[in-house]
């Protein structure tokens, strides 16, 4: 087993070379963009009611961090997001499983899922806030109703898409229904579930901010409205930047998870 190392090396070396090149291009792109932004903020759009420069934004973020405000808002949003997304994941996978494995399940959940998946459920968040108050849970609920549908749909589709020949092969080895589920259907559904998770994360992030806009006492969305009301542009941009970075970090985390759970999908094509 140790002797396979040699065969492994080649794609990895190639990938790190390409990764270096593409990451330096990205770095240049970002630095260039920031420079243009800074330039516009200083010399073109002089009115600080419309634009804050990157340096002001950085200063603001440092200031927010120093006073501890940043921590409070990030913590509030993170709580809502994590609680909501966790429930959406667990419940979504469970419902998707029920739909894929029983006819009745499909008939009971199917119409709702189809109808609600395409609906911009984020639009009803004011209603949820009205019903559930302005605490953590109302926002968590908004996250759930936005993130759960991609989880349900992808789990269901993934379990159904299991290659019939693989199931037959497992049956020939005497696998029970339960073993077929654990060892064949589930692993083959994981790529679908992860694709659903990517969507769920994005939708969940939007949901948190939008829900906070409608009613909250803390959170990045709250920070955003507060800053907008008093035309504090550096602060408003600070909130936006933090959200953007969070989005990037979360996407990268899901990518990591993919590589961890689906190593077979990445072997031999790592240069991509």
């Amino acid at each position, binding site marked *: 087993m140790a002797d*396979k190392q040699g065969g492994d090396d080649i794609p990895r070396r190639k990938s790190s070379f390409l990764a270096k090149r593409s990451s330096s291009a990205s770095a240049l792109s970002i630095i260039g963009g920031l420079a243009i932004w800074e330039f516009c903020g200083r010399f073109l759009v002089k009115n600080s009611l419309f634009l804050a420069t990157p340096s002001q934004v950085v200063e603001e973020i440092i200031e927010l961090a120093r006073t501890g405000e940043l921590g409070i808002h990030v913590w509030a949003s993170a709580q809502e997001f994590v609680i909501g997304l966790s429930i959406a994941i667990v419940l979504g996978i469970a419902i998707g499983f029920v739909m894929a494995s029983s006819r009745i399940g499909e008939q009971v959940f199917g119409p709702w899922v189809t109808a609600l998946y395409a609906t911009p459920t984020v639009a009803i968040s004011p209603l949820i806030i009205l019903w559930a108050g302005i605490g953590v849970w109302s926002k968590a609920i908004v996250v759930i109703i936005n993130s759960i549908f991609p989880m349900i749909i992808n789990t269901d589709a993934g379990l159904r898409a299991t290659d019939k020949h693989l199931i037959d092969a497992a049956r*020939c080895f*005497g696998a029970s229904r339960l*073993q077929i589920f654990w060892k064949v259907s589930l692993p*083959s559904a994981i790529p679908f579930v992860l694709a659903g998770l990517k969507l769920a994360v994005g939708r969940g992030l939007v949901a948190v901010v939008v829900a906070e806009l409608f009613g909250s006492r803390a959170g990045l969305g709250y920070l955003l409205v507060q800053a907008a009301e008093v035309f504090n542009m550096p602060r408003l941009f600070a909130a936006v930047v933090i959200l953007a970075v969070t989005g990037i970090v979360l996407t990268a985390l899901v990518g990591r998870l993919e590589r961890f759970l689906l190593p077979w999908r990445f*072997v*031999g094509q790592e240069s991509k």
Partner: protein
Amino acid sequence: MAKLEIVNVSKSFGSLEVLRDINLRIEDHEFVAIVGPSGCGKTTLLRTIAGIETPDRGTILVDGRAIDKPGADRGFVFQQDSLFPWRTVWQNTIFGLEISGRIDEETKKRTRELLRLVGLAGFENYYPTQLSGGMRQRVNIARALAINPEVLIMDEPFSALDAQTREVMQLELLRIWLQGRKTVLFITHQIDEAVFLADRVVVLGRRPGRIKEIVPIDLPRPREFGIKRDLQFIAYVDRVWSLIENDVHDSVREDAVALN
């Protein structure tokens, strides 16, 4: 007593009669090949022997015991590539042992030897996507052999391979078979493959699949490629071909008509 016995097996899918009164006895250590035109029910017969399809009539016996479900006494290699893409070579190979809860030091050691036997030592941690078609089929064979079955049943295992790889795999299979001396039931489209490998070639007729004739192949073993130029070999191929020629023409024509 025959190792594998197929007694009066018939099978229909709805109104489509696929197998009619199949009777076949396969002795221990015997290598039997089945040829027949496309759609004559070869895979269906195999699935019935596997126990994942139930015959309408008739019985399948292994060592004199009637079987009604899959079991570790039969190992399968499939027509399609049926390795689990998320499992490494090693994990694929031990799949059957895992299912029946028989993984221990001894079976692991045996499986490692098996992988060496099929020429895949050192590839244990590779995923199927990293292997060539020929290597994948070797894993398939190893996976079937890992449960140490009484009978090895193969459904056109080399049909997806190119001509050269196919020839090499035929030799490999004979080599593996000579070492373990399992009973083998081998399905193929290719007549020279059947004659090259088998002790007997069973010729199935067009749907509904019936046994037309069984041709014993009296060629010395171990067999090498050279034998394929042997006059006796060519005579066997001609004989089998003449038995199924009309059926092949008819079945192709029938499929064409069905398409129009």
